[in-house]
């Protein structure tokens, strides 16, 4: 069930929010767990058993790891549990890809039936791993109550696309959260913003980006290649950050605080900075559970550690060479930046060039990320500078660009923290701020909500992009 569908907004959400606030406080977590399982089963009924097995497996593993006087080495428990979680992820997500590689390299002729991917498997596996490792390291207390573990893994606002909240952050709020008007209202507003990002910007751009990537390299014009690439940069950001806003907003309505996942990534001045702003919780996961255990920048070879992290980042997004190369593409620039930093050479580069550098690397990376395969992605790069294309522009490209120019402008505008800065500026003028906040902003939110409902009434179902991962 997607947040941007009428079924969610007008059926699931009101029932759950009403039930949650009417039910006895002691039953709230159990109620949320049932709601989360219904939410998951609505989209993936056939995987609900797998999902429950994963939850129970990690619950019991956590119990074992958390026993104070465990007579065996806890590592003996940890390794099979991690292997179980990663193995399941491997089976659903990477087995087909691995078989393909084996067949190509060894001409093995292995055949495999198509394996369907359970919704959100990459996200809930990482949350499971987070719980297990945190219990192992003692940063989270082992949970005796299975509802706590189950709700952490399955919490419906975050189950399909994150954010990947750390177990200690989530579990510490399990029995320690209270309704506050401010938080609840903030959650509603955040949800509406996310809905608007998804429906008004991302889905509109999807209609023009998809055909560009479907075109063969020779029929794609230079103009189409450029608006397709920029359009995808914006689509992906507004789609994913829109989902995150909705997830954070919903979590707030249930009085859960959730870490931010985005912080205006396209204003970054370096790739290192970009990864501090883009999919922050995934970056944190790899930092805490891969990079630091590998030795980080203190032990071992830091360049190798970074390489591994970016290789895994690419692989996490999908079982295809294009994702792996995309991860390594970012890793390459991250390594160059690190080498530059360590060399202590200081060049005075104007900010505008730093931004241009980041945008270029990121946008070209997204082309690989979006393309059907690596070769298509590389050919797309060629199209950007007129290689492999027959014309610079055609009437179709110009029509499409002209038709969506305003959405491009709006999208680019909201990639910058202009609204945030404006609100901060207005807040300083206290009286004006009160007026603006009370009347104008409420009107804007109501207007946006109504427009989003209008978009829902028209739109064909357009799943969130990160649902695929």
């Amino acid at each position: 069930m997607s947040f941007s569908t009428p079924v969610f907004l007008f059926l699931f959400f009101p029932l759950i929010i009403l039930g949650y606030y009417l039910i006895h406080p002691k039953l709230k977590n159990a109620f949320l767990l049932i709601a989360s399982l219904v939410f998951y089963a609505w989209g993936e009924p056939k995987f609900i058993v797998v999902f429950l097995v994963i939850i129970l497996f990690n619950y019991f593993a956590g119990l074992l790891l958390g026993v104070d006087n465990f007579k065996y080495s806890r590592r003996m428990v940890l390794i099979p549990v991690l292997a179980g979680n990663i193995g399941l992820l491997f089976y659903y997500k990477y087995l087909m890809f691995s078989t393909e590689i084996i067949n190509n390299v060894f001409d093995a002729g292995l055949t495999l039936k198509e394996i369907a991917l359970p919704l959100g498997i990459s996200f809930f596996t990482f949350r499971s791993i987070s719980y297990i490792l945190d219990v192992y390291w003692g940063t989270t207390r082992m949970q005796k109550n299975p509802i706590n573990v189950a709700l952490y893994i399955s919490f419906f606002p975050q189950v399909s696309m994150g954010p990947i909240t750390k177990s200690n952050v989530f579990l510490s709020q399990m029995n320690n959260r209270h309704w506050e008007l401010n938080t609840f209202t903030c959650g509603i507003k955040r949800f509406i913003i996310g809905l608007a990002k998804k429906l008004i910007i991302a889905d509109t751009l999807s209609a023009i980006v998809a055909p560009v990537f479907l075109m063969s390299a020779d029929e794609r014009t230079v103009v189409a290649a450029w608006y397709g690439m920029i359009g995808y940069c914006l689509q992906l950001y507004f789609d994913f950050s829109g989902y995150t806003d909705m997830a954070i907003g919903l979590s707030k309505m249930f009085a859960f605080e959730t870490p931010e996942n985005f912080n205006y990534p396209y204003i970054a001045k370096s790739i290192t900075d970009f990864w501090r702003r883009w999919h922050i919780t995934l970056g944190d996961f790899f930092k805490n559970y891969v990079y630091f255990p590998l030795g980080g920048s203190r032990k071992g070879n830091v360049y190798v550690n970074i390489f591994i992290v970016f290789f895994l980042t690419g692989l996490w997004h999908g079982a295809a060479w294009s994702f792996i190369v995309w991860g390594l593409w970012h890793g390459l620039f991250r390594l160059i930046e690190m080498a530059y930093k360590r060399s202590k050479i200081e060049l005075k580069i104007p900010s505008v060039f730093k931004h241009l550098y980041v945008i270029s690397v990121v946008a070209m990376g997204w082309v690989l990320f979006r393309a059907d395969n690596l070769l298509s992605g590389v050919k797309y790069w060629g199209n950007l500078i007129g290689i492999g294309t027959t014309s610079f522009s055609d009437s179709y490209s110009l029509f499409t660009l002209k038709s969506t120019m305003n959405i491009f402008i709006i999208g680019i505008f909201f990639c910058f923290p202009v609204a945030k800065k404006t609100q901060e500026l207005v807040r300083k003028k206290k009286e004006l701020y009160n007026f603006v906040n009370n009347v104008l902003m409420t009107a804007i939110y109501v207007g946006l909500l109504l427009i989003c409902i209008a978009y829902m009434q028209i739109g064909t179902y357009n799943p969130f992009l990160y649902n695929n991962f």
Partner: protein
Amino acid sequence: MKKHSDMISFIVIGVVFVLLIGMNWGNYANIAQTVIWKLQGNTDVKAKENISSALKESFKFRDKFIDLYGVTKKALGENIIGEYEYVKDEMGVMQHILGTQPADQSNYIESVKNLLALLNERNIPCIDVNLPDRGQSFLAADKLEYSCKRNREIEDKIISFGVDEFNVQKRLVDAGIISQKDFFFHTDIHLTSKAEFLMAKYLTEYLTEKYFISFPNSDIVYDFNMYDWQDHDFCGNFCGSTGKKYIELDNFQTFVPQYETNMKLTLPDGNIRQGDFINVMTNQYTDEGSYWVLNYGQWSKLYYTYENLKYPNAPKLLVVADSMFMRANTFLALNTSRLTVFDPRYINGSEDAINCLLDDDYDAIIICHVEYFNNVKFAI
């Protein structure tokens, strides 16, 4: 003060949301019923579809929300609707985009070939009505598939193996009898009533000129002044996706002959209607919000026959067409003794459907191809 502002936002947004739910209370009753049926083990109930539909297609004031969608799209200057399903072209005319890949037309081509062989044996002429290109002024037409473009491709093919062509673009639009703008609605895939009237008129003339088929009542039937034309604001089938505010509304002209008519309609199920034009040839729509196109003809019927009881010796025609030619059919029927309309879209497994309808006494077979015929086999 911050608390007050939160309270205001909370109350206003909450009230709007509760109002939206309240307005749809009836839909929630349907959802509850669906859930109960499902829980009772009724496997025929498609719960997900029913629930989705109750909150989307049956959503209260859905048309107003679609209008709001159109207003927003217009304010944003967007000409592309949905997933490139519709576009507003440079002339402000809506185009229904069918993708980027050409359609497989083999079934249709084969059927027309078979039909032509039958007709040649029986010496019955076969004429294809070649409609103008709706996307003539649509810049992005080169790379996109839309109905008129696909029609043109298929018509070129069937003409190449011997079907005669009545080229409406050349005979009506280029000749200045009707402008491209007056030929099509902005908001609907169909043709204006005036366009269909003129198509019937000039097609009749063509049949007389080329095939010496003589029609008894042309002077009256094709006199524009012999009808009571009434104007209605019309938001056609594209409005379901764009609302009434996105593009300029059309004017739909309904018409009633101001001369005596005596017609009979026979439907496939054996039902018969007999009487004047209004009783037989219209579906007697009166509501201003009607989808006026379907006021004429028998939409969703595989075939039906009009008999003009006033002119039993007039020519007989068989027309292969969909709703794109329904009003033209009514004008043709007023000038023939028998007119059978055959819409291949509604064939259900019977690939020889037209073979059964054919008899030797048709004076001509008219085909008005539309893209939706591509996948059907209707003649063996």
